[in-house]
């Protein structure tokens, strides 16, 4: 299967074309309840990540809470 490059939190990642976002999140060990996810600057519904297929040059941001004032 064809491989594509995407960016996750600013870092280039190679994944299979049309692979699911949910697989990527699982692979990265992301605790879904504690994060929010953006795909190309749009917030996505975390529960629907298995309906989203990754495409070339997709930009994904995964954020969580850290200490701050």
């Amino acid at each position, binding site marked *: 299967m064809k491989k594509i490059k995407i960016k996750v*939190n600013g870092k280039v990642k190679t994944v299979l074309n049309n692979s699911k976002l949910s697989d990527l999140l699982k692979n990265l060990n992301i605790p879904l309840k*504690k994060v929010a996810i953006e795909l190309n600057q749009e917030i996505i519904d975390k529960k629907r990540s298995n309906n989203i297929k990754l495409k070339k040059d997709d930009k994904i941001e995964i954020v969580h809470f850290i200490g701050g004032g």
Partner: protein
Amino acid sequence: MKKDKLIIAKKKFDSRLIVGTGKYKNMSECAKAIKFSGAEIVTVAVRRVNISNKNKPLLMDYIDPKKITYLPNTAGCFNSKDALRTLRLAREIGGWKLVKLEVLGDKTNLFPDMIETLKTTEVLAKEGFRVMVYCNDDPLMAKRLENSGADAIMPLAAPIGSGLGILNKINIQIIRKQTKLPVIIDAGLGQASDATIAMELGCDGVLVNTAIAKAKKPFEMALAFKNAVVAGRQSYNSGRIDKILMGNPSSPTEGII
């Protein structure tokens, strides 16, 4: 004494001390300092997950959001667009609607950009957020924020992290007098007595991060701030005496031998 609660966006809190969770040596130190402070609200920042270190400890593992109210902030945002993006993401993490907005205007003094702040407050309020707004100590801007839908006014005491204490007590008092909203002193406190002064000016609470996190003994300082806020509030509620220029003896002047 009747219960004297802090009410923000219809939520009631016993503690009037809000603490930041930044600048601690590690998360367990941060969690312990929060315990000592008695704070029920803590500010948190929204940042990228470290995807190369999967085992990095998470804030939520140390500070339970079911027990302590998380107040997501927009630290590091210098315009409305970034602040909105950050808080929309924060809400998405788990439904947080109570947020702290801060839009900074200058990287060295960290003063807020009030034009961007005002604009953002309006948008957030329309989107259903309950917004606590970091602002300068300008009564006119504070009024505008109130009119834009803010839920709490958070004027700075002094620049963030400066430890200078309250620079403009008169402005803070004017801001307190003119608004129905809670006024929380945010940023610039250096020691516990600064918090007492804030409370004695009539403020409804204080937000402290650096002064506790960077104290030589953070746990003791957290406790000191807790007590200082309580003392200041009690003092304010008790109604202080008038100031007079000359002395007034405490013992009766009649019957002196």
